[in-house]
């Protein structure tokens, strides 16, 4: 009995291969985008963990000199006092075309490093080679292949354990490559120390011990980014499920007669339901597997850009390569199964409750639709209200995303009723029978195609919202860079002594030499970098203040006030008029708040003398140089020649700006790609809706045809209908998208990054998107329209056949 029933059920798919394909494609797409995002997230997190373990930064405390590097003798003295420490020298340098972070370690004292272990597994001579004259550079395989043809480099060894963009080598070789002999940036305090040690604050009171937080910082900073990606993945998943829902619903509808027959033949309804459930799960498994494959490809294609984003935004090291994780496969399949069940629950439920003998009821669409419209409108409004309430109650990033979810889902539910109202309006404005029919029939079609249109609405709104956010951000960022990067040249000296020397040398050769000096303080438990500035018009005229007291600059220049960046202001809720305690006994009024994009942590600015009184050993190695722009190249040459500075130590303003913007643009490539993919899925949802509606459409079209319309005319009308719906949906997506943009700019950004951005409007982008939406809808409608155009009259006549 079961075999026969299964055969009967399966025959449906044999007769409707397109429906089967659509169902699988919908499942695959939903699973693909979701699992792609998951794969990217997992890969990024694994990279952070790897980087943290690689640098030993996750667990070990660090000893640092506040004024810059310490000497090697300092390290040896502490070792001889018994302290188990390991020296680290770190710097940015250019190897060939690549800008890399060079990490110099002492392999003999450093805690076990995965990169070393792996390299030594491969070749026992590794350590010896690393320690002797020739040296050895360990880098990620990508970096090794980028560096392998650079002349004059020590031998390279590829290791998967080395974070991307980083070269690990012996500290002796690092000294030479960074041109920093006898210097050490920090000492790792090893976990096991001998007994009877003299405390460090007696041995080295000038050195600061800090708990390493690199790994934790990365995780905290990037959490919001990953939440963002996950939200996108979920959106795509939902859009994909619209397809599944539509197809399953249709398949069940079309199998009503068969179900009735099977039941009449004695198959219990529960068994039938179980069989159909099993069938669905099998399909979900196949679709899920397809989706995983597809998702892997998508993730592999997107990951390099995500890696660039994370590096650019947060300095988080992420490799560009993707590895398959079992948890990812299981998770993706589970999502496919759960999604299928969710999308099919309604159809299954209806089938279970279907009376055995009732004739297939006439489509009571008019009443049902009106009733459903009211219910949906109420639910939609309710969801939006819930979103707003969530933001008010939960606050924070989660609240922001709850608002977005409420807004988007609520708007999606509102779409069919609003479209119905619009179509009704259109009908009243139309004269002529065909026009009337077109409006009325489009209205009647809404229940079938509504879900696909919701998908389109969400995709379009996401596009507008995210696009507006990114473009607003870019515009603001560009303007801000112009304000902020005023000095024509920025330089970094090797140490304080060289810094002072360079400043002296530059004084007669430039308009101004502005020291960039900072020290770390703690405000309300969070690290804040406090910069000390000299009184100079460069700052007064250009610094981008969001809010200020009337005599802000006078206050700050007198050391009687402090500017804080927006991130700190929002996090600590400090605004002009408040006071901030930077250190015990150092309390300053907030004189202004400045925008500070691209920097995740807190920052403050006050007068340099004030900083120097309150901070010990403030490094004096970085300077901004004011000079006529034409003289910059010559000055760079002269500085390089005179002080033997590496290329990375001298950056002109134009270079810095273009580099910043390049990082910025790279940052949002992924967002754009996900946006387009979502739109593509929405277009596909429309196509599948139209295709699945096909057999239901014929009885409605045939009478009109019989009354004297050509098939060509009907096909064109079908196309027009689809475009009409897409147009309305796109028009409705605009306000939703702008609302989304506002939430992103004013809520999410503030929570995730600590800055609020002004919102700009980009109508040309909307137009482009509008055309794209029409194109998607047009393409989706073209296939069924073409089919209609080519349909033999005998097929249409079957509608009128008497023996039904």
């Amino acid at each position, binding site marked *: 009995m079961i075999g026969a029933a299964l055969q009967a059920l399966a025959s449906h798919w044999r007769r409707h291969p397109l429906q089967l394909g659509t169902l699988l494609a919908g499942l695959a797409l939903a699973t693909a985008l979701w699992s792609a995002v998951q794969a990217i997230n997992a890969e990024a997190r694994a990279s952070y963990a790897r980087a943290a373990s690689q640098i030993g930064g996750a667990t070990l405390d660090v000893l640092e000199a506040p004024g810059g590097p310490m000497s*090697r*003798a300092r*390290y*040896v003295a502490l*070792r*001889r*006092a*018994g302290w*188990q420490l390991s020296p680290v020298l770190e710097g940015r340098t250019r190897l060939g075309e690549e800008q890399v972070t060079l990490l110099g370690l*002492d392999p*003999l*004292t450093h805690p076990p490093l995965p990169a070393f272990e792996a390299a*030594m*597994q491969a070749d*026992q*001579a590794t*350590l*010896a080679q690393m*320690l*002797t*004259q020739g040296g050895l550079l360990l880098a990620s395989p990508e970096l090794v292949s980028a560096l392998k043809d650079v002349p004059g480099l020590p031998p390279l060894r590829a290791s998967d354990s080395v974070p991307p963009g980083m070269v690990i080598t*012996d*500290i*002796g070789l690092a*000294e030479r490559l960074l041109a920093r*002999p*006898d210097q050490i940036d920090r000492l790792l305090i090893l976990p*096991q*120390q*001998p*007994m*009877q*040690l003299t405390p460090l604050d007696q041995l080295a009171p000038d050195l600061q011990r800090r708990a390493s937080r690199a790994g934790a910082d990365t995780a905290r900073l990037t959490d919001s980014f990953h939440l963002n990606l996950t939200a996108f993945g979920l959106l795509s998943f939902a859009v994909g499920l619209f397809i599944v829902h539509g197809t399953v619903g249709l398949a069940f509808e079309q199998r009503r007669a068969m179900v009735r027959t099977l039941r009449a033949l004695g198959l219990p309804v529960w068994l039938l339901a179980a069989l159909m459930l099993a069938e669905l799960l099998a399909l979900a498994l196949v679709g899920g597997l397809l989706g995983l494959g597809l998702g892997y490809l998508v993730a592999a294609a997107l990951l390099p850009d995500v890696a660039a984003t994370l590096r650019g935004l947060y300095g988080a090291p992420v490799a560009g390569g993707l590895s398959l994780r079992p948890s990812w496969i299981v998770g993706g399949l589970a999502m496919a199964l759960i999604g299928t069940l969710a999308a099919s629950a309604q159809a299954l439920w209806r089938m279970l409750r279907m009376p055995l003998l009732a004739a297939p009821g006439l489509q009571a669409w008019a009443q049902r639709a009106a009733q459903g419209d009211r219910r949906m409108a109420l639910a939609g409004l309710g969801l939006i209200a819930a979103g707003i309430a969530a933001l008010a109650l939960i606050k924070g990033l989660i609240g922001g995303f709850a608002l977005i979810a409420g807004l988007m889902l609520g708007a999606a539910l509102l779409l069919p009723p609003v479209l119905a109202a619009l179509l009704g309006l259109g009908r009243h404005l139309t004269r002529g029978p065909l026009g009337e029919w077109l409006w009325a029939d489009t209205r009647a079609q809404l229940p079938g195609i509504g879900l696909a249109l919701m998908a389109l609405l969400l995709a379009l709104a996401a596009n507008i919202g995210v696009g507006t956010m990114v473009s607003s951000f870019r515009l603001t960022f560009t303007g801000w860079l112009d304000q902020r990067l005023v000095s024509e040249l920025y330089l970094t000296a090797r140490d304080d002594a060289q810094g002072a020397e360079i400043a002296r040398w530059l004084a007669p050769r430039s308009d101004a030499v502005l020291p960039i000096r900072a020290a770390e303080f703690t405000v309300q438990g969070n690290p804040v970098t406090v910069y000390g500035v000299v009184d100079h018009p460069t700052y007064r005229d250009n610094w981008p203040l969001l809010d200020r007291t009337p005599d802000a600059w006078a206050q700050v220049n007198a050391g009687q006030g402090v500017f804080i960046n927006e991130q700190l202001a929002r996090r600590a809720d400090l605004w002009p008029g408040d006071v901030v305690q930077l250190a015990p006994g150092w309390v300053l009024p907030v004189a202004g708040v400045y925008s500070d994009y691209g920097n995740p942590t807190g920052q403050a600015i006050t007068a340099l003398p004030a900083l120097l009184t309150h901070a010990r050993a403030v490094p004096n190695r970085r300077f901004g140089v004011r000079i006529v722009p034409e003289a910059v190249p010559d000055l760079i040459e002269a500085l390089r020649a005179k002080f033997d500075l590496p290329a990375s130590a001298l950056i002109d303003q134009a270079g810095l700006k273009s580099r910043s913007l390049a990082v910025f643009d790279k940052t949002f490539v992924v967002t754009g790609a996900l946006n387009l993919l979502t739109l593509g899925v929405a277009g596909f949802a429309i196509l599948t809706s139209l295709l699945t509606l096909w057999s239901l459409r014929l009885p409605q079209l045939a009478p009109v045809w019989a009354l004297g319309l050509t098939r060509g005319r009907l096909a064109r009308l079908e196309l027009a209908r689809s475009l009409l719906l897409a147009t309305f949906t796109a028009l409705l997506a605009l306000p939703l998208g702008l609302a989304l943009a506002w939430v992103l700019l004013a809520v999410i950004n503030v929570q995730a990054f600590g800055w609020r951005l002004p919102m700009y409007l980009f109508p040309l982008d909307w137009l482009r998107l509008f055309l794209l939406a029409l194109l998607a809808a047009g393409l989706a409608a073209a296939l069924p329209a073409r089919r209609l155009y080519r349909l033999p009259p005998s097929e249409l006549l079957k509608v009128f056949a008497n023996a039904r």
Partner: protein
Amino acid sequence: MLARLVVILALALLAARPAGAQGFAGLGSTAAAEGFATPSPDTRLSFPRDHGPHPDFRIEWWYLTANLTGPDGTDYGVQWTLFRTALALGEAEGWASPQIWMGHAAATTPQHHYFAERLARGGIGQAGVHSDPFEAWIDGWQMAGEDFDSLRLTARGAEFAYDLTLSAEGPLVLQGVNGYSVKSADGQASHYYSQPHYRIEGTLTLPSGPVAVSGQGWLDREWSSQPLAADQTGWDWFSLSFDSGAHLMGFRLRGARGDFTSGTWIAPDGSATPLAPGAFQAAPLELADVAGRQIPIRWRVTLPERGLDVEVSPLNRQSWMGTRFPYWEGPVRVTGSHAGRGYLEMTGYE
């Protein structure tokens, strides 16, 4: 004891891999090619110069073991070792130095065995040896004094520390022939001298607290560029001090071609007699499970020419040095024809 240094250092530095027959086979032959000096029977040792390092040779160590007793009669053992190995010939200033230093320190009680390990690069001052006044150090551990006869020895680990004074009560002993000690039938050799006559006083600090200790110590100095013969996989090394005042140093190098044994008999007056290959015999009496391996824990040691037939048993069977290259090293008791105490080292047991 040339062999143990080669293997320890070579393996610790090159991979921390277990010793294999070929693991170190090539080192001896490349020594000459890389310009390292080789021990010569014609060399005459000179002091205090030869207390200092010999960077022309690939490997070298300062190796002190001590049998100590607490006020309540409890026996303790202490080890302090500084190894030097050269990755390349010569010395250089700063990190570029090819000299690698490794320190091992241990304290053994009848119940516990504590040990610690230190690694350092030469050239930066973190570790090194000066001959006059004598100073050998790595990190905070040191063995130093006005001269070689009176030294202060310190080391600190996470769970133990000691601070001991060493006073020589006899002359230096040149091992082998004039300090030229042959290690295999193929002629591998080292320069080797000892000071087996240290009287020791001081404080041993254990997790339970400080203990005043006294006893005797034995210091070995050895350097070479040549390791074991190709087939030699491990060794058993005995340094025994008898109640009579006499001392015996004897070792057995285990190889595929048979064992190679040698040693020195040191009379109470300090006069040393090299033993002919094969004269010294050591045979395991009992195996024990130590760190997952079967290690011969009791031995029968015989030297017929001196009428010696003794049983050597450990103070603590688990005297396991779980360092990068692990080995067994601990204090032993001697009973039988001669009574006394000493140290036993065993390597190469898988």
